């Protein structure tokens, strides 16, 4: 496995999915075990990746480079660098834990886990593909299982949500596809001189054709790529698929959706848009920062008005992804490192929040915030976990969310002072909606209706504790993750901002 560690990570879940597909659907325990193993192996491999990753080098590592479709110069090019490493780790961890969060799925268990593992393959693929075509393939591969996971195992309005998600994402993909083809036709392989999908060649501005160096063309390409990725982030005003998808999706799928899928948008911008069109990135940064501020505040205000816990958490994701945008726009090391760290931290924190919402939903079969009250007495351990997650979300120091938000602000303040001052209001509003929800659900007089709710059980704690530890550790010592990314990102800043 050492040689092809990325391929193993990517395709092992697929093997698991195939095995599950062959199993009889009645053998539920076997299916679950296979799924757990299929997700555990990439997790172990990601630990190996973490151990062996050369932190001092900004270069691509664990490279696998083969020809795939010769006639179009499409390559099988997989590698990781500091930008993708944290995302790989995050995907491996959340996917593994989500298998356990899905333990109680009743309906068509077999199909569920097969889809889930297929999704995992897609996610890994997106984060380590360095051939644009391959990237696009994985990008689409991921879409399909997600559609079914929401559309089949979702809540009452699942069809609407699934279709909305699918169409929205597909619309973005189309723009990305156009931009990809434009690049393909206008980037020359420095060795052969032919067209290429190789991203590394695309990064090198010398390989761009004269047409591709036209400013207007580049602006249009930037916008096409940006909208393609913005839908995934999601950036205001392309965000409304998110609350619907989250509300309808089963808990584990929400976790993956918010924890990993949203990051693909910002990952795409940093991986593809920034190095391929650096001058456009600079041109667009004020707009990006403004959009970030809008996301932060607008998401937070919308979250405050929600009555459904999951919707609230979904809008909080919109708000938190705004910080990522703001940090990315800052174009300095604090900002961009903070942004990528925030991508990672938001993944873990939101995962905790969704898992917690899932816990109470499994018991009470409602997520209506006002239906609860005084649960703190009834479920003290659950109260602790949920409060932990919520305080992490509101950026409490000592927990990981604060570090990344602080870095983003530190980075953004010199770059955009007014926007940062306005964005910083998000820390007040963020605290307001979080605490208000905490109060309505857990504090105050106990609602007798919930006298029989049992406290959080061992399996649920098993999904929450590892993330919780990670959130706490990274809040106190953020360097392990920052070490992974800083060289790569600082190189990126040099490319973009000069």
């Amino acid at each position, binding site marked *: 496995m050492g040689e092809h560690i990325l391929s193993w990570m990517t395709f092992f879940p697929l093997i698991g999915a195939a095995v599950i597909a062959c199993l009889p659907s009645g053998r539920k325990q076997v299916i679950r075990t296979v799924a757990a193993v299929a997700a555990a192996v990439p997790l172990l491999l990601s630990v190996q990746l973490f151990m062996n990753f050369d932190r001092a080098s900004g270069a691509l590592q664990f490279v696998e480079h083969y020809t795939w479709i010769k006639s179009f110069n499409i390559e099988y090019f997989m590698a990781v660098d500091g930008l993708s490493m944290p995302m790989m780790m995050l995907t491996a961890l959340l996917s593994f834990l989500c298998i356990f969060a899905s333990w109680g799925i009743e309906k068509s268990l077999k199909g569920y886990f097969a889809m889930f593992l297929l999704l995992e393959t897609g996610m890994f693929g997106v984060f380590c593909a360095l051939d644009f075509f391959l990237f696009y393939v994985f990008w689409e591969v991921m879409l399909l299982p997600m559609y079914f996971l929401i559309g089949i195992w979702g809540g009452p309005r699942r069809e609407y949500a699934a279709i909305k998600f699918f169409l929205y994402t597909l619309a973005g993909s189309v723009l990305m596809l156009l931009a990809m083809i434009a690049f393909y036709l206008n980037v020359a392989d420095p060795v052969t001189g032919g067209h290429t999908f190789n991203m590394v060649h695309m990064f090198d501005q010398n390989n761009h054709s004269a047409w591709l160096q036209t400013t207007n063309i580049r602006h249009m390409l930037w916008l096409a790529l940006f909208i393609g990725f913005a839908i995934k982030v999601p950036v205001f005003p392309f965000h409304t698929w998110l609350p619907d998808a989250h509300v309808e999706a089963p808990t584990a799928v929400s976790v993956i959706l918010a924890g990993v899928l949203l990051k693909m948008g910002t990952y795409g911008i940093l991986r593809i848009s920034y190095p391929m069109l650096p001058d456009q990135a600079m041109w667009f940064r004020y707009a990006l920062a403004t959009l970030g501020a809008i996301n932060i505040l607008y998401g937070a205000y*919308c979250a405050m008005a929600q009555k459904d816990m999951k919707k609230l958490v979904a809008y909080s994701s919109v708000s938190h992804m705004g910080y990522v945008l703001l940090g990315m726009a800052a174009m300095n090391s604090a900002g961009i490192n903070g942004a990528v760290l925030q991508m990672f931290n938001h993944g873990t924190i939101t995962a905790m929040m969704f898992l917690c919402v899932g816990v109470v939903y499994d018991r009470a079969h409602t997520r209506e915030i006002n239906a609860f009250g005084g649960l703190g007495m009834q479920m003290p351990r659950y109260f602790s976990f949920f409060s932990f997650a919520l305080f992490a979300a509101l950026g409490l120091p000592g927990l990981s969310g604060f570090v990344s938000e602080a870095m983003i602000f530190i980075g953004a303040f010199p770059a955009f002072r007014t926007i940062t001052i306005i964005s910083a209001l998000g820390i007040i509003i963020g605290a307001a909606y979080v605490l208000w929800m905490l109060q309505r659900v857990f504090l105050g007089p106990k609602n007798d209706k919930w006298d029989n709710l049992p406290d959080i059980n061992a399996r649920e704690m098993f999904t929450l504790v590892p993330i919780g530890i990670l959130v706490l550790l990274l809040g106190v010592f953020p360097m392990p993750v920052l070490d992974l990314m800083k060289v790569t990102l600082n190189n990126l800043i040099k490319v973009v901002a000069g």
Partner: protein
Amino acid sequence: MSDQAIITAAISILLLPLLSYTLTFFFGKKLPRKGDFIGVTLMGIALVQALRIFIAFWKIGDPAYRVEQSFRWLNLGDNFRLDAGILVDGMTAVMLMVVCLVSFLVHLYSTGYMHGDRRYERFFAFLGFFTFSMLGIVLSNNLFFLYVFWELVGLSSYLLIGFFFHKASAASANKKAFLTNRVGDWGFWLGILAFFTACGTLNYFELFAQVNAGAIKGPLLAWAGVGLFMGCVGKSAQMPLHIWLPDAMEGPTPVSALIHAATMVAAGVYMVARLAPLFGPEALMVVLYVGAITAFITATIALVKTDIKRVLAFSTLSQLGYMVMGLGAGDPVNAMYHLTTHAMFKALLFLGAGSVIHAVHSQEMPEMGGLRKKMPITFWTFLIATLAISGVPGLSGFYSKDGILGSVLAVGMVKGHYLPFILGITAAALTPFYMFRIVFLTFFGKPRDQHKFDHAHESGWAMAIPLMALAFMTLISAGIPGKTADKGWFSKFAAPYDVAAISAQFDAKQGGGELLVASHEAAALDGGHGETALGEPVAAHGEAAAAHGEAAAVPGENLHAEAMPAEGGHEAAPAHGEAAPAHAAPANAHGEAAAAHGAAAGGHNSHVRHTAHIRAMIMSIIVATLGITASWWTYHKLRVNPAAIQARLPFAHKVLQGQYFFDELYAATIYRFTLWWSMICAAFDRIVIDGIVNGTGYLTRLVAWVSGQCDRYIVDGAVNGVATVLQGAGEGIRRVQTGRIQTYLVYVSASVLVLIVIYRVL
């Protein structure tokens, strides 16, 4: 103690409460007595360590002496780095002592007060966590970690206010406290960002050097200072963010004593005092007025409240207003001094109140009365604290409050801003009045609720010992009676920042006479000699070029001028006499004089300060006497009927009882606007944005429908139409073919005829 030993002790002080938190939180339930002894023991050890540090600094006796140790916490490789570090100097030593002492006593007290509570072990865990965060604020050597612990303190306050979270009022109060603090933190954070952006560091002393070197100046400095001060406004509950503190009394009483009286609310004052050199004159003016207004307004509210804890809460607000006022007057030393003394007597007051509440199971003073005999320890200790807060000479509160009032009056005399002093002295008159109102209503007179009175009893030793200890501290914390604060023990621990020295240390270029910093006042009074490089009202210095001598003047009458040889390091004999007339200016300006320039100015300022001090002292003694007498007259002798006054001034009473309607104002404006705006956003999201999305969906479906109809009726219609036409034609023609030969003949004949007609006729 060696420097390393000091650092080690400081770290152990920081970590012990954290350990207490961890052990109690995770294992408390399983331990005997639910693990309360862990917290008490560990805090006891921390207190001993704090005492060791305190004694070490007492021996050193140099306010400028400091021990600092940092490590790189965050490093991004190129130019971005953040350090974590520990700083111990005199001010820290005092704060360590205050926090550890009060925390230890409150731990001890809580074993009695909270006995039998369902979440007993949680309470101790949270206390431990709070102490940890508070000590973090005290020990941090940079703004970033100050902010980190600042927020953690906010969290522990949230947890402890909401300790009885099953009560709806507690559940709202903790949220309110956290959010109000967050508003302040917003400004605080922006201030930090501004300083970091301009100076590239957050370490206190590096920052001071940078500020002194002019890395940040003008409006930005003013705004950044106001930003930092917003943090103080939030945490120290100043106007207009003071609304959370009265509600915070929903927490258990030991919490009110520890957090909402002695330590956490003082963190804001500590922060501004610590960062004094970062505040420009404009920012200080804001600080001064905010403090004065807070001190006055909250003192008036305290007059009418009947809930004993609420009165104490408003009195805390008022005293915090004093401290902030002192900071604004450029006198952080007296502010810190008042913080220290106030921590002792206010903690004592709260714990005493807790003891009363514990005994009568009520917080309403109209239901108490005559408890003096039943609870002697509580009564006597409470009385001592009341005398102290009232400013009775000989007790701690008198000296510290008087120091602040003196500085404020001096600022007034120099700058012409007399309003803060007027507000301050009025509040000083009100303080003894409402404090003795508590004493008389609670401990004197006849019991107004006999049932409650019968059940009242003196509290157990766990609660009595902390009361006595704090009473003892209240008595001695003033230092030697008869001397002012400046001459007392406190000057060993705190001195205004010696900006020039710091600057010289960090930036060698800044030696010599290049740097001549004088405060605005000094320059003005002085006839303008010397260049006003930076309006630095806290501590303005000039530095002697030739001798590299610098004058580190304690605000007050004595001035130590030390001549330092150019080689540096060795202190020459203190040259007291030389600059003896150069007194510290009210608004600071401890200038020193290279060529005796400053002497005249300094002399003048110190004269002003001295005068102000004397006047303030006389006035405060007068008003304290007046207040106590009036209170005695009204509430003990009952010569004045408060109800009658109330009836005569219904509007004033309503306003005071309603706490100037700040809550209502915010509820009607900010809360409502925020909720309304969030609804608007959500509706916008649902209706407009989702409407556009769904509209696009509908539009697409409409187009699809139209296209479908097209397909069905036009394209398919054409195909089917051909068939239909042919079929219809066949249907018609079929009728012609009857099978009757005769008919055919008719057709043939007719056809022939027609043909004939066509060919022949036409």
